[in-house]
């Protein structure tokens, strides 16, 4: 309960601070809409010359891409910025402050000020997704929708924990901003159909580099496609990565030397 309140307070503070830089805020939003639009346009063009890609029709693909964009923007708006703050804090000594507060460390590392325009960028893919769904609404049940939302959240959790697991390398190497490239790569992979990873590497992209649980899993539930795994396993992947990142955070902390001030 306290954590919900803390999170809410952070949101309020960020909104208050963000209203001061309005112009940039709108332009960032436009940029993200353009980005969504261009990605969808290239899909449109590809499907101009093929009927389906590994069994994914154009409509399916749009659902997949929008899902990956939503997962991406939720992570970027709420978590990514704070994880980067944590990485910088490990280098500059700012991490001291987190250690002093009587609040769960994992929570502090992942949350904090909200990147408002990143979060608002969700609007574009959500609208496209809804309009796509309204076309297919006859086939979609309420269970599917709630499962979709569950797996969407699970996707964000997997992405956040996976990235944190990598960012905790900052305790060893200090400068690790190159890891951001892995994030971009993950998002690139997440928006592709899971068939791309081939049968041989499938388990690798579930358990080692978890690209499939991010967007493929929720999209699959929504589209009623046959899952490669029992559904509960996707949630298990989420739990596993949360545990791994927690362990890594607490192990890494022992190496933390703060900064000489």
């Amino acid at each position: 309960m306290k954590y919900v309140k803390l999170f809410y307070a952070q949101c309020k503070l960020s909104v208050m601070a963000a209203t001061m830089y309005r112009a940039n805020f709108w332009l960032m939003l436009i940029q993200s809409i353009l980005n969504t639009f261009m990605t969808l346009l290239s899909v449109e063009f590809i499907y101009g010359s093929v009927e389906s890609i590994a069994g994914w029709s154009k409509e399916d693909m749009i659902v997949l891409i929008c899902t990956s964009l939503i997962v991406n923007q939720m992570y970027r708006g709420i978590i990514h910025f704070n994880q980067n703050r944590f990485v910088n804090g490990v280098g500059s000594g700012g991490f001291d402050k987190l250690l002093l507060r009587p609040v769960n460390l994992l929570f502090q590392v992942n949350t904090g000020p909200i990147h408002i325009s990143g979060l608002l960028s969700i609007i574009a893919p959500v609208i496209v997704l809804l309009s796509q769904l309204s076309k297919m609404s006859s086939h979609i049940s309420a269970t599917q929708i709630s499962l979709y939302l569950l797996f969407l959240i699970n996707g964000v959790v997997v992405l956040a924990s996976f990235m944190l697991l990598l960012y905790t390398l900052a305790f060893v190497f200090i400068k690790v901003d190159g890891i951001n490239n892995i994030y971009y790569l993950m998002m690139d992979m997440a928006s592709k159909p899971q068939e791309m990873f081939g049968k041989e590497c499938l388990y690798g992209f579930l358990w080692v580099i978890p690209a499939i649980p991010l967007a493929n899993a929720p999209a699959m539930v929504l589209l009623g496609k046959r899952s490669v795994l029992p559904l509960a396993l996707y949630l298990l992947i989420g739990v596993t990565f949360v545990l791994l990142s927690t362990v890594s955070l607490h192990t890494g902390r022992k190496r933390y030397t703060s900064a000489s001030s």
Partner: protein
Amino acid sequence: MSIIQVEHVSKVYRVHEKPEGFRSAMKDLFQRRYIEKTAVDELNFSVEQGEIVGLLGENGAGKTTTLKMLTGILYPTAGKVTVAGYCPTERKKDFLKQISFVMGNKSDVNWDLPAVDTFRYQQLIYDVPEVEFSENVSYMAELLEVKHLLKTQLRRLSLGERMKMELINCFLYTPKVVFLDEPTLGLDLRSQIAIRTFLKKYRNDHKTTMMITSHYMDDIEETCDRVILLQKGQKTFDGDIAELKKPEMSFKEGILNLMGSGEKQK
């Protein structure tokens, strides 16, 4: 039992030796060389409840490192630290709610917001009841003479005013043990005096235990009951401040004398 207990505590930093020039950089690529730096060496002391202890020493003597180990930020390389009955690095919630660490030169507040908003957030983090919160804020704001500034954006405040806000922020939840690392760094005389008065008064009202480091001897002389002197990570003096206040020597001279004899001992 003493509220702070430090037994045989050491801290060794392992630093990567930065190579100079191009060729040694290439060599370094394959074989890193590290040097070990002992910042704190076999430290022993204890502090009783309600005491104010001054931690003195030259730059690099290991004062900040000691405070960071006492607050659980750093793991000691060896030895045992107990504060308020807890091991600091375990980060138990009850422990963290009892301590506070005032860092003179660091703060990660949101600069765009006024101080009250920061205090509200702090209230939430430390579960401070509303009554206690408003009492504490008005009591401290009055003592530090910043009542009229509570609603001003933090970035518009001067260094001294900001430091006072930081103090309020750190004392907001009535901690039992407070560590202050150079709380008067860069402040003018008036603010320095205000902060000293605040600390003394606060201790008398709340029986708070404090450890202070400062390079302004007046801070130490006026607020502390006891002084611990660190030299190159080792304790070379630990005693009542009265021992140093002699009629034939000023406090500063006394400290300088101590440092000299500490050097000779080695």
